[in-house]
């Protein structure tokens, strides 16, 4: 069963969001990394990019497939995980840790209320 930490928010596209005040750290879930298989390449947006909720902001490539990364919130990209260009496998090993993808400064802090909590995301996985 996929690991779904209780302190994070989730999207239906299998991203997670860790809300830290006005900034949200974004990654893909354990379920997503398992489905993708071995991640070998990650394309992330530039720091400073303005993104809207639901935008395709990057791509994650596994040996077999290409998947889009969708922004869970709207705001400005303030940090990206450059380490992933050297070790994309971090996404498989620690999807909630070293495998984080980017940080977004929220343009509308209320938007996080629209994300799924762990219970709702677990329910979504059950029905997947």
């Amino acid at each position, binding site marked *: 069963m996929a690991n779904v930490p209780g302190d994070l928010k989730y999207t239906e596209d299998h991203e997670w969001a860790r809300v830290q005040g006005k900034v949200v750290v974004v990654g893909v879930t354990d379920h997503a990394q398992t489905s993708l298989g071995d991640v*070998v*390449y990650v394309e992330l947006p530039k720091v400073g990019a303005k993104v809207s909720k639901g935008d395709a902001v990057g791509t994650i490539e*596994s040996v077999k497939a*290409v998947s889009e990364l969708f922004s869970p919130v709207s705001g400005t990209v303030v940090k990206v995980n450059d380490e992933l260009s050297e070790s994309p496998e971090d996404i498989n090993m620690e999807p909630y840790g070293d495998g984080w993808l980017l940080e977004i400064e929220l343009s509308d802090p209320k938007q996080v209320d629209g994300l799924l909590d762990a219970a709702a995301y677990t329910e979504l996985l059950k029905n997947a």
Partner: protein
Amino acid sequence: MARQTPLNEAHRKLGARMVDFAGWDMPVQYSGIIDEHETVRTAVGLFDVSHMGEVEFTGPGALETVNGLISNDLARIADGQAVYAGLLDERGTFVDDVVAYRFSPERILICVNSSNREKDFAWMKAHAQGVTPVDRSDDFAQIAVQGPKAASLVQRLTKTDVSKIGTYRFAEGEVAGIPSIISRTGYTGEDGFELYCPAKDAVALWDALLTEGQQDGVKPCGLGARDSLRTEMKYALYGNDIDDQHTALEAGLGWIVKLDKAAFIGKEALVAQKAAGLKRKLVGFELTGNGIPRHGYAILKDGARVGEVTSGTKGPSVNKAIGIGYVPAELAAEGSTFDVDIRGRAVPAVVVKTPFYKKP
């Protein structure tokens, strides 16, 4: 409803992730593509390739009949040898790529791609002049045992001396007590065997290989690793690198086309193409920028589309983004450069010598 091989339940028990592959419910991976890929490069991996088809020609004139259908020449090899060959149409493009096994001049077995089984059989029936082909696909299961430890593993399960079976040769014998064709062939670039056995015995053979292979570090492997391994060798995949739009010569497979043998379908077109010179060629390339080339991406020169990527991946053993694709002949030489359109980004690439992977 997807078709299943006799090993379907065994894959599920082993926790394989199953996918639809050309209408077959097949394992794409077990432990992970990179792990399985490395297991085949360093130890030994098992692949269920029972979805492949088998067509048999038996009786006087079998060799001549098959030789009229395939591009390679069965008359040049001995009994107990196999050849890789094209089934070509009149234009010299591929109906399929196959392996033909010569048991004797009166018994030839042809292994065809799963996705082309029905098409190939119908085509062979329509074009065979002499012996009538028989579709044996449902009688056989096939397990590929691939990797540097494959020979010692198979040897411990058979009385047949496998050291006497050279590359692209085969013998009939028993493996784990199961009557098998033991063929020293494969699609990974490693030493290994493809074992053909009666479909009803597939599970017993699979289990025996897994159990006996524990000491070798054997692992079941899926189609994902099979694809990354063959891409590193630049082995063609039907539907990607070869098809009915590109000739055998354009695909760089001139070595499986024997233009000096008696007539076969496609010969005239290829003789003419060879005389006129090739306009495009299948090449191997590496990206020198960031990204991974994928099947269907455009190849660009000075911004204009000049070709197409047919296969691509990040090669786990070469640790590079590698690709295969058709380019105009003037861009086919080693060192030539072009760009690959990766979702709107022009990423530079250079033509390199293949295979991409060379054994250390």
